[in-house]
C-alpha cells in the first residue's frame, strides 16, 4: 500500500496533538494568596513561603504557608523520627520549590498526621521540605536546615475542611520543646500572614515561623 505524504502529515499531527494532551497537567483548583514571596536564607539559598498543589509556581494554587524551620543539624528523616510518636500517618503529597545554593528544584512531601481520616474527627498535619538529594540545606548561618508547613484536617471522609496552621505549628513547637529541643515559637517573619476562607480551606496564619534547633 502506498502511503501518501498527507497521510504522514496527518499521522504526525495526531501524534503531536496526543503528546500535547498527554502532557496536560492535572490541575486541581487550589487556594490563592497575595503573599507569595521568595525568602532568602543567605549563601544563595531561598524558598517560596507557601507550598503548592502542583509543581508549578502559582499564587492561585498554593496549599499552606511555611510556618516551621528546623536548623543546626536537621534533616527530614530526623525530624519525622522525632515526631513519629504523635505524627504517624502519611498524608497526601504537596510540593515546595526551593533554591539550594543557586539551583531551583522541586521537593515533594506527604508529611505526617496524627490520626486516621474519619467522618467527624480531625488531625494535625505537617510537611517538611529540603533539597531531595540530601534531605537538608546547608549554610553557615543556619547549619543543616529545612522548612515545613502545618495545618489541621477535619472530617476528611465526610464534609472535609482544612484550617488552623497556627494550631499545628503550636502543637509541634510544644512537643519539640517538651523533648528538650530549643524552640522559639513565632520567631521570624515569613511574610505570609493570611486570614480567609476559600471553599473548604481556611487560612489563619499569623505570618511568623517557629524556629527549632536540632543538635
Amino acid at each position, binding site marked *: 500500500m502506498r502511503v501518501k505524504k498527507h497521510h504522514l*502529515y496527518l499521522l504526525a*499531527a495526531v501524534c503531536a496533538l496526543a503528546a*500535547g494532551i498527554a502532557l496536560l497537567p492535572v490541575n486541581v483548583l487550589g487556594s490563592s494568596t497575595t503573599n507569595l514571596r521568595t525568602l532568602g536564607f543567605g549563601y544563595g539559598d531561598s524558598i517560596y513561603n507557601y507550598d503548592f498543589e502542583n509543581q508549578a509556581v502559582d499564587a492561585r494554587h498554593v496549599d499552606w504557608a511555611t510556618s516551621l524551620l528546623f536548623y543546626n543539624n536537621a534533616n527530614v528523616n530526623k525530624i519525622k523520627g522525632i515526631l513519629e510518636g504523635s505524627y504517624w500517618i502519611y*498524608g*497526601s503529597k504537596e510540593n515546595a520549590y526551593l533554591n539550594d545554593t543557586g539551583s531551583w528544584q522541586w521537593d515533594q512531601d506527604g508529611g505526617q498526621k496524627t490520626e486516621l481520616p474519619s467522618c*467527624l474527627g480531625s488531625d494535625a498535619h505537617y510537611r517538611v521540605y529540603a533539597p531531595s538529594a540530601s534531605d537538608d540545606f546547608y549554610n553557615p548561618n543556619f547549619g543543616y536546615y529545612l522548612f515545613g508547613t502545618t495545618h489541621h484536617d477535619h472530617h476528611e471522609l465526610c464534609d472535609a475542611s482544612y484550617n488552623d496552621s497556627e494550631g499545628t505549628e503550636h502543637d509541634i513547637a510544644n512537643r519539640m520543646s517538651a523533648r528538650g529541643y530549643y524552640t522559639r515559637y513565632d520567631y521570624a517573619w515569613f511574610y505570609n500572614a493570611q486570614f480567609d476562607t476559600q471553599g473548604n480551606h481556611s487560612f489563619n496564619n499569623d505570618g511568623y515561623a517557629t524556629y527549632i534547633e536540632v543538635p
Partner: protein
Amino acid sequence: MSRRTSVWWGRSSSRLVSLAAWLVAIAGTASILAIATSGAAPPRTLATQHGLPVRVPPSPGHADPSDPGAPAAAVAPKGAPSAGAADAAASQAVLRDDAALAQVLHGIAYRVESVSPWTDAAGEGQLGTVVEIRLDRPLTATARLPGVRFDAGGATYRRLLIPAKVTGATTMRLLVDLRSQQIVSAMPPDAALSPTPDTHGLYAAPGDRHGS
C-alpha cells in the same frame, strides 16, 4: 459523481487534508510548548535575588538577631476581615429564618461573634459568609448536621446531612451561602462531636476533594 468531479474532489480533498494536518500539527506543537513552559521555573533573576532576607537563628548567650521582616510584620493583617455590612445583615437574616439551624439548636439562643467572607476555592468569587456563633447554654443532642463536600476541583460543593451526637457544644461555625440564602453548614467543634450508627454511610466518593 463524474470522473472529472471525482478527480477534482480527490485533489482538493488531498490538499485540504494536508492543510488540516499542518494546522493540527502546529496546534499540537504549540500545546506541547505551552504545557512544557507553563510550570517552568520562575524567571532566572529569582535565583540570583535570594529573596527577602529572613531572621537568622538565635545564639545562646547572645542577644537575638534583629528580624529584617519586622517593618512588614507591623503593617500586616492581624485577623480575618469582617464581611461588609450588607453581607453581615443578610447573613443574620438567613440565620433568623433558617429552619434547619433552629432544629439543630433545639431552642437554644445564641449570639453572633463574627461574620467574615467565604469565597470559592480560588478566592475570587464570594459564596457567602462564615458566621461564628456562641450558644447561651451547651448543646447536647443527636442531630443531622448540615455540611458541604467540595468536588475535586474545589469549585462546587454538594450538601450533606451528617448524623452526629453533639455533646456540650457552646460554639458553632456556620457557612451561609448568600446566593441560595441558606445555611449550608452548621458544625460544632470536633471535640463535641461523635458518630452515630448512621454516620458511616457518608464516606467521600472518588473525585471529591480530599487531602490538603
